């Protein structure tokens, strides 16, 4: 008996073609856009944690324990994902986590229809206290970008 059974199997069809340059470019743009947004959101929260805490605990409709968990973990998760996307380490994994976060944000926006300030992106409250659909639309655009990054084959 020589050789293993694996030698006799037909090779599994894998797509080894390199990604096309428009695809790579779009993926890169999406990646850096996501990284910039997540880093900005994280740094805004981390540099003013008490304000973020009050915003979540007083003005969101989340149950208190969930709110506390969000306050403690979310800024750092955003920072880690943003850093990974910016530095090119574990990009698809970070993009997947970002996508999950964006879906959760969208569910929240839909459930509570709130346009209240989220303490993101260095903007004062007046900038983000508009219509309830704006965070939803913004997160949808970012979600499409993150899905593009996830589906892109590593070069």
């Amino acid at each position, binding site marked *: 008996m020589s050789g293993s059974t694996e030698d006799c199997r037909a090779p599994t069809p894998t797509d080894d073609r390199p990604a096309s340059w428009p695809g790579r470019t779009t993926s890169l743009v999406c990646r850096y856009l996501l990284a910039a947004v997540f880093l900005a959101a994280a740094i805004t929260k981390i540099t003013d944690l008490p304000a973020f805490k*009050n*915003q979540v605990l007083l*003005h969101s409709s989340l149950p208190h324990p969930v709110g506390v968990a969000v306050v403690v*973990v979310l800024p*750092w998760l955003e920072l880690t994902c943003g850093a990974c996307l910016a530095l090119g380490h574990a990009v698809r994994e970070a993009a997947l986590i970002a996508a999950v976060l964006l879906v959760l944000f969208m569910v929240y926006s839909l459930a509570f229809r709130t346009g209240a300030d989220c303490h993101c992106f260095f903007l004062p409250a007046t900038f983000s206290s508009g219509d309830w659909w704006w965070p939803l639309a913004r997160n949808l655009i970012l979600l499409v970008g993150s899905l593009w990054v996830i589906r892109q084959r590593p070069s």
Partner: protein
Amino acid sequence: MKPRNFVHILAVALALSGYSAWSLAARQEGGRGELPADFPVATYPLFQVPLLRLDDARALWRRDTTLFLDVRAPFDYQCGHIAGAVNLPEAEIDKRFPALKDRLERAEAVVLYCSSPDCAKSYWSALWLHNKGLKRLHIYPAGWNEWINRGLPSAHSD
């Protein structure tokens, strides 16, 4: 995708979260910030609740520790309210209060408003909340009409 990478990302985020937990816990031990002594411009004599002018209300609105309570009817609230305000209709205050109690107690300032100075709902609501043991209550008598007429941030629900 490698599961190991997910573990790395989550582990780093959780490790860094320790800083947030420590920072917020240390701040809580240090006590809550007091509002400036010159904030109230007048008080409602019955139970000494400060009455706010527009500038005072706006200054408090900018603070994230302030909770604005709209005591008008839900329909009025849906048509338009001060951005970030929560609806606690005066007619349903006893029914809706339990759900809001935690948030009201955590707020460093609670500002009640109605449509105009002619509307007594904010006074009645403030008295009711005062009797429930809530402190740091403020009334913004000029209310929604003045706020929206000055073009200040507002929101509406569908």
